[in-house]
């Protein structure tokens, strides 16, 4: 398909529609998403049902939210960009921790459910 357009300069409204401006408590943040930048060498060691730790990882001086295996080397399976603003806020300024349960692995693509612990 060719696509119908991205988040560019279009759209009809402006300024008035601000639905769930996500004032969710950190404890209530739960969602399913795909891991971005998946590392095949790490994914190959994983199975459905595995629990990954969701933590802030420094990458070239910038904090990213990563999903790490619970092995001795704490390998980075991939990064999370959905609800990123909320995760950064909660991981940096609350006592809430998050984990990601692996729901599916398909050709190196990993779907997880992120929940507070």
């Amino acid at each position: 398909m060719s696509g119908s357009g991205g988040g560019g300069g279009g759209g009809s409204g402006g300024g008035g529609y601000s639905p769930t401006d996500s004032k969710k408590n950190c404890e209530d943040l739960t969602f399913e998403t795909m891991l971005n930048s998946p590392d095949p060498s790490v994914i190959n060691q994983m199975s459905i049902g595995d629990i990954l730790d969701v933590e802030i990882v420094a990458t070239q001086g910038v904090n990213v939210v990563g999903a790490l295996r619970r092995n001795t080397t704490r390998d980075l399976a991939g990064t999370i960009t959905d609800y990123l603003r909320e995760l950064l806020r909660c991981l940096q300024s609350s006592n809430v921790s998050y984990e990601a349960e692996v729901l599916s692995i398909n050709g190196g693509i990993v779907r997880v459910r992120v929940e507070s612990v």
Partner: protein
Amino acid sequence: MIVVGGTYFETCERPGSRVMFGSGLRAAGAISLVAQNLTLYTAVDDEFKMTAHSAAAALGVNTFWVKRSEPIAFRYYTPLSSPSIDGRTATCEEISATDELALVFGMIETRPKVECKKLVFDPQQPREIQSLKISSITYEELVIVANASETRVLGKDESVEQAAKNLLDSSQAIAVVTKCGAWGALVTTKEGQHVIGAHPTNLVSPIGTGDIFAAAFAWAWGQENKPAVESARIASAVVASWTQNRVLPIMEEAFRKQTSLQPPLKPRPVQVYLAGPYFTLGQQWLVDLARSAISGLGAKCFSPFHDVGPGGDEVAIADLEGLAKSDSVLALLDGNDGGTIFEAGWATKNQIPIVAYASNPLEETAKMLRGTGAELHTDLSTAVYRAIWAGLRERS
């Protein structure tokens, strides 16, 4: 290669998502594994700076940031809805960039200054475009990648085909690539026009597909030096690969081999019959949304509510006459409306394929539909796209 475009906060209610992307960051993230020496030039405000930097780093995108005056956010109720845009009056410091190859998106907060040899320009103004705003860009070769409504306005013709030809002439571009949603794409060059069919997918997430298309096209045409038609074919395949899982960056295999995709459908005129109740405000909203989406994605929509109108028993024959001329049915099943079910049964008997949408999975009530080959989806975007694709397939 450089990508110049917006980094914006994007939210969607159903299905729920909140991401920091925008055309520029999404496109750069898409090709960060295959583009050589890629840099994204974009802007961000203080409020979202940490989130934006994090998103770019998470996708491995080397980014040059300038300061923006305020946040810009795109808020979708569904991926098929027109977004509401916050921050339309935002401004930013000047963006100035130079490279051999540039993919430039129209931005809300600025008109970037770019010097390049090969330029792929995506206006990103589906509803407001009046002219091609590229006076701040110097280039030797230009390809315009635009959607159908932008092409019609820029080419000053209701016919997309004619408008694309007009735009090619007026802009002196070497190609105009018109994105036509589920229908496919139209590539217009001095040699003629080519249609590129869409690859059907089992899941569809429309937000950002245009950005991915432009990025993949720019890579294929600008970096790999493939002709415009082949570049558009590659772009269409990359979008199909991506929309099923939305993982970024996109793996190199998706750009070079498309073996796992369903073959593209041949674009042709297609009409989708929109069967659904329209007796409450919510039902009418959904019918309007689906109708608008079908039309915007390259198909004609026969909507009994709009094309026949509400009424008594007399509307039945007129509705069925419209159904008989349709290539597929999109059935909106929420509410278990008798008329919708009747129309689905009639379509089944007459071998018109049915794609149905229901908010929640239906077990017993959808048995006859499932048992006779109808598709059932709980995701509206997927249902709409697949209804168009069902109509594009040749009837057996």
